[in-house]
C-alpha cells in the first residue's frame, strides 16, 4: 500500500470528477485519546486524505492556531511514539484513506531517517511533509522514505518559479501541495482565481495531482479551489473547532466533524 494508497484515492476521485477534501488535524490535540476520536471520524465526515500533524516546539511556518495546537499537544504529553500509535489504531479501522504526516525536521532527525520512515510506514502512514526540509537537504530522508514506499510530499509556493519547480519536484511522489499564500498557516485568505494558473503550472510540471492549502476557511472557498485544483486542504478551521470545544464539556470531536462534513460536501459538489 502506501504510495499506491494515495494514487488509488486520486484515481477514484478523478473517475468521479471530484476534488479531494484534505483534512488536517494535530496529533495529540488536545490529548492523544481525544485526537483519536477526531481522526477516526474524519473519513465518515468526508475526508479523502488526512494530514496528521506531529507536534514541534518551534513551528516556524505556522500561524497562531496551529502553534497553539502544537502547544496543547506537547503539554498533554504527546510523543512521537503516540503519533505512530494513533496511525496504527486508525489503520485498523480504515485501510483506504491516505494518511500524510506533517511537521518539522528536528523530531525526524532525532529519530534518524531510517527509523522514522520504517516506523511511520509500519504504522500505516503513506507520506510525509517536512516543512523545513527543502530538496537541498532532503536526499537522506528521501532515500529512507523510498525504501519504505512512502512519499515525500513537496510544497510549491507563490515564490516558486519554473526553475525552482524543477528542483522541487525531483523525487516527489503522490501529490504536490500548493501553498496558496506567502505566509504562515491560517492567516491570509486563499483566492481561487490567483491560484488557478499556478496549479496548472505545477500539474503540468509534475504530472501529479495538486492540492491547495494554507488559507482556505469557508466552504465556498474550499469549493472554489476544488474547481481549479485536485484538492482543498483545510486545517486551521478544524483546529479552531477543537480548541473552541475545550471549555465546553461536549465531546471534542462533535463540532469539528460537523465542520469537516460541511467542507467535504462543498468540495465534493463543487464541480456539479
Amino acid at each position, binding site marked *: 500500500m502506501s504510495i499506491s494508497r494515495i494514487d488509488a484515492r486520486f484515481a477514484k476521485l478523478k473517475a468521479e470528477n471530484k476534488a479531494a477534501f484534505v483534512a488536517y488535524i494535530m496529533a495529540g490535540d488536545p490529548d492523544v485519546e481525544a485526537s483519536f476520536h477526531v481522526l477516526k471520524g474524519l473519513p465518515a465526515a468526508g475526508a479523502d486524505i488526512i494530514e496528521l500533524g506531529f507536534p*514541534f516546539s518551534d*513551528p516556524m511556518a505556522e500561524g497562531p492556531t496551529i502553534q497553539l495546537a502544537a502547544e496543547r499537544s506537547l503539554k498533554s504529553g504527546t510523543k512521537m511514539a503516540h503519533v505512530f500509535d494513533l496511525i496504527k489504531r486508525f489503520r485498523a479501522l480504515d485501510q483506504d484513506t491516505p494518511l500524510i504526516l506533517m511537521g518539522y525536521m528536528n523530531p525526524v532527525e532525532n529519530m534518524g531517517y531510517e527509523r522514522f520512515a520504517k516506523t511511520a510506514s509500519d504504522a500505516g502512514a503513506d507520506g510525509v511533509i517536512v516543512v523545513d526540509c527543502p530538496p537541498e537537504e532532503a536526499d537522506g530522508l528521501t532515500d529512507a522514505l523510498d525504501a519504505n514506499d512512502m512519499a515525500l510530499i513537496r510544497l510549491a509556493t507563490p515564490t516558486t518559479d519554473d526553475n525552482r519547480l524543477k528542483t522541487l519536484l525531483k523525487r516527489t511522489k503522490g501529490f504536490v501541495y500548493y501553498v496558496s499564500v506567502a505566509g504562515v498557516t491560517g492567516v491570509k485568505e486563499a483566492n481561487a482565481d490567483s491560484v488557478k494558473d499556478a496549479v496548472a503550472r505545477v500539474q503540468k510540471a509534475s504530472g501529479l495531482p495538486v492540492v491547495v492549502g494554507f488559507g482556505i476557511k469557508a466552504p465556498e472557498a474550499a469549493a472554489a479551489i476544488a474547481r481549479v485544483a485536485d484538492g482543498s486542504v483545510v486545517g486551521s478551521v478544524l483546529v479552531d473547532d477543537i480548541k473552541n470545544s475545550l471549555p465546553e464539556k461536549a465531546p471534542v470531536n462533535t463540532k469539528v466533524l460537523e465542520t469537516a462534513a460541511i467542507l467535504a460536501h462543498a468540495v465534493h459538489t463543487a464541480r456539479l
Partner: protein
Amino acid sequence: MSDLTEPAVLTNSYNLPDAKGRFGDFGGLYVPETLMPLVLELTQAWEDAKKDESFWAEYHSLLKFFVGRPSPLYFAERLTDYYGGAKIYFKREELNHTGAHKINNCIGQILLAKRMGRTRIIAETGAGQHGVASATVCARFDLPCVVYMGALDVERQKPNVFRMNLLGATVNPVTAGNGTLKDAMNEALRDWVTNVHDTYYMIGTAAGMHPYPEMVRDFQAVIGKETRTQIMEQEGRLPDAIIAAVGGGSNAIGIFHPFIDDENVKLIGVEAAGHGLDVYNGHAASLTGGRPGVLHGNRTYLLQDDDGQILEGHSISAGLDYPGIGPEHAHLFDIGRARYVSTTDTEALEAFQLTSRLEGIIPALECSHALARVGEVAKDVGKGGIVVLNLSGRGDKDIFTVANAIGQTMSGM
C-alpha cells in the same frame, strides 16, 4: 586597518562553509519552501558583494566614522595582577557605538539590504543589543525596522526597548513559548515568510540558515583582524589564548576566525551554564550540554528533549539564553580546534562585579561569562603568556538584572 578598501573576507586553510553552506556536519539550509528563493537570492547578493571593493569601502568607512573602530586592545593590568598569570588583554568591543559588537554585523547587512533594494528590515533580539544596533542602522539609512523580542526579554531589558523606540523602531513582544530569543526568531521567520517581497531579515548572530553564519562571521571578523594587528604592535607576537562568550556565537567567531590557522593560539568559547549543567533545562550550554539537531534553518548542537522537542534553556543573560549555537562553533567543537567551557549565573555575576571594581569597566552579563573563566586560562597559560578576552558589550543594560540578582534595590531609577 587604515586601508578602507581591504575586503573583510578572510580566507584561511579551512575555508568553510562549502557550497552547500556546511561546516563539516553542521549548517545548511533548512527553511520552508516559501523562503528558499529569497535565501538563494540573498546568497547570490552576498557572493556579489563579497567581491565588490566599493561595498567593503563603504563598510569600513562606516565602521571607522560611525561605529568608532578600531576598538582598542587594552591591557587589563589589575585583573592580570589579581590572577597572577598571563597578561590579560580586553578587546574593547563595548566601546563601539551602541555599546556592543553587534553593530559590526548590522552595518554590513544594512548595506547588503540596500544593495538588494529591500525597503523593510526585521530583526530578532535577545538582550536587545542586536535590536538596538538594527534600529540604529535603520535610522541611519532611513528604513523602517520591526524588532521581535521575547516578552520576558522585553521585561528584563527595558532600557534597550526604550532605546529602540527612540531610534524609531517598532518592538513587537513575543509571548509564544517562554518569550525569549528562540521565540523571537520564530516570529521573525513568520514575518519574513509573510512579507517575502520587500523584507530583509537581519539576523543578529552567526547562526540560522546559510549564508547567515558565514556572512555574520565575515562582518564580525573585523574584531579578530584588528586584534592580530594590535597584539603584534603591542606585544610583537600573537596571543597564547583567546576567550569569548558564546550564545549564538557571533562575537566569538568574529575574534576566533582570523586565528583558526594559528594552531598555537588556543580558542576558548564560554557557554552559559545557568543554574548548572546538571540542572535539566536549567542552562543554555548547547555544545557542552546538548546534541545535534535542526532548528532555525541549520543543523547544529541544540538543547532538546528525548523526542526532539527544543528546550527553552536558561541563562541570567538574555543574550546567551538560546538553545542553539552557530554551526561553525559546532564544527570547531567537533574537530577540537576550539575548546568550550561554561560559566554559571552566579559565577558570571561575580565576574561582573569584580571587573567593574578592578578595571573600571562594567561589562555586559554576556561577556561576564568569559570573564569568569579568564583567570583559569591566564593561570594555565602562565606568566609571560598573553590572553585576549573579547569584551563584547557594556553592562549598563544589565544593572537592573544584576541589582535584582544580588539583592540590591535601585529605587528611584
